[in-house]
């Protein structure tokens, strides 16, 4: 028994290798982002950061409107994060705790939409955005992403397991309306889960590429990811510049991750496959 319980040394070896594989590319991005082209092309490669970081960062900001891109990304990802947290909680609440005709059938539809590949429909999606007059605007990125089937599924799971029917019935007897029950009782109780869902929405919106690449036209509207692409275009030879842009665009998420990563891990493990 004791032998089976012990953690073997090769467990740590393999986990260490996996962690190194996860973290090294980011470290390497930082290294190249701090060296000039000549050093980046030196063999053997430099594996400690150089002193060129601020020079290259300055170049990033002068080549593309990078501050504007970061702000655009914050606006888009922030709106989608908040939209996910609120709208998916609301729909999840209806599916978990309210009784209405067609509930189960409609929930099945929500689950089925998760398996519908919609990225291949970008041409009609673009035509719709175009007819709304939203080409080259941020709402073209925000509105379609405000809610997701995954988020509804996720919040329904949490609401169903966290909130007892008795509390809701008691509130109803006390005269609370459905909206008050959601906003005053249900939502505060599942706020941690809604927060993690909002974070996941934020991260995927921040990192989205294809859709902004199609919809955005002018450099002032670029998100951080499209700005990286523009850097790669204009300086295809200067690798350090593209790396520097990539690093600067990743940095906000890394900082965020240091603070909330633990909760994200717990949320992902908690969410999907309990029920």
């Amino acid at each position, binding site marked *: 028994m004791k032998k089976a319980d012990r953690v073997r040394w090769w467990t740590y070896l393999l986990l260490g290798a996996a962690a190194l594989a*996860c973290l090294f*590319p980011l470290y390497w991005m930082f290294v190249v982002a701090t060296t000039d082209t000549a050093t980046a092309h030196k063999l053997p490669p430099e594996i400690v950061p150089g002193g060129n970081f601020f020079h290259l960062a300055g170049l990033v900001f002068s080549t593309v409107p990078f501050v504007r891109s970061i702000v655009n990304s914050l606006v888009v990802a922030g709106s989608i994060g908040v939209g996910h947290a609120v709208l998916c909680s609301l729909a999840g609440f209806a599916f978990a705790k309210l009784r209405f005709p067609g509930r189960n059938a409609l929930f099945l539809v929500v689950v089925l939409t998760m398996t519908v590949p919609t*990225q291949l429909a970008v041409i009609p999606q673009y035509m719709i955005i175009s007819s709304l007059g939203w080409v080259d605007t941020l709402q073209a990125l925000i*509105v379609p992403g405000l809610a997701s089937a995954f988020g509804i599924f996720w919040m329904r799971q949490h609401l169903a397991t966290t909130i007892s029917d008795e509390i809701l019935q008691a509130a109803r007897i006390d005269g609370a309306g*459905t909206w008050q029950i959601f906003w005053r009782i249900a939502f505060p109780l599942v706020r941690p889960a809604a927060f993690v869902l909002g974070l996941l929405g934020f991260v995927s919106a921040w990192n989205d590429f294809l859709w902004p690449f199609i919809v955005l036209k002018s450099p002032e509207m670029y998100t951080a990811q499209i700005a990286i692409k523009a850097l790669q275009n204009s300086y295809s030879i200067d690798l350090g510049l593209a*790396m520097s842009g990539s690093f600067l665009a990743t940095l906000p998420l890394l900082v965020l991750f240091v603070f909330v990563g633990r909760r994200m891990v717990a949320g*992902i493990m908690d969410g999907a496959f309990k029920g």
Partner: protein
Amino acid sequence: MTATLSPPRALPEATGRVRQSLAERLAPYAYIAPFFLLFAVFGLIPLLFTFYVALFDWNPIGEHVFIGLDNFTRLVGDTRFWNAVWNTISIWLLSTVPQLLVALVLAHLLNHARLRLAVFWRMSMLVPYITSVAATTIVFAQMFDRDYGLLNWLLGLVGVGPIDFMQAGWGSHVVIAVMVAWRWFGYTTLLYLASLQAVPKTIYEAAAVDGAGAWKQFRHISIPSLRPVIVFTVVTSTIGGLQIFTEPLLVARTSPLTCGPVRQCQTLTLFLYEQGFGQFEFGYGSAIGVALFVLIIAVASLNYVLSTRIRPERS
């Protein structure tokens, strides 16, 4: 609050229902409406419209001429299309199979009550997931570079190479597959780990008493109990993996829209983008979308059937 005193179910439900106004009765529909509206406008209608546009010679700023199935006839005879189909399937297989296997092993390793640094291992595995595809692609393209890449330098130390990964079809597929797998294996590991933790420890202990080693426990307890989550990850990675776009677009130094001069890593989504937004052939691009739809449905169904075959040995 009367929560603890209230009788179960029947009475409050009944009184609640009588009092409900029309607005209260419509509230649930209002709460779920935003999602259905958004999905209809930006998901379902565009998907259906793809099938319609595919029947036209459709120029975004010019004529729309109905041409029936001509786009599909053209597609079947287009070697660039079959090349993209092959590249898509190849990259998807190269990225998905190793990713899911690695995640299985890592989840099994992480599922140990006495493991030290458990939070660190889990958090570091989520770092690739928060790194953007664009940034990932630029770093990995450098690491696999022929002249200055880290990997070729390492290979050079043991007297191999340099290998021009991007030049060769298989090489560029491997480079892209590594990026995709790197991004997702940690997330998948956490999903598997969550499922493994739901398995009672006593089952493993009983198996150990019966003389089952690590491999037998993995094969006969871990894998069967992971069945639902394996099916889920296989289906989602099929849907995602067959629509790869950003990696091939950003990885090629020259001719990004075709992922290299001889289309060595152009995927179907990239081909769709090239025809639709590069050549402004919305009709032909939509026909590619329809073909991609058929491919995804076919592969996802096949995977679903195959992965639901994993059954517990003993029930």
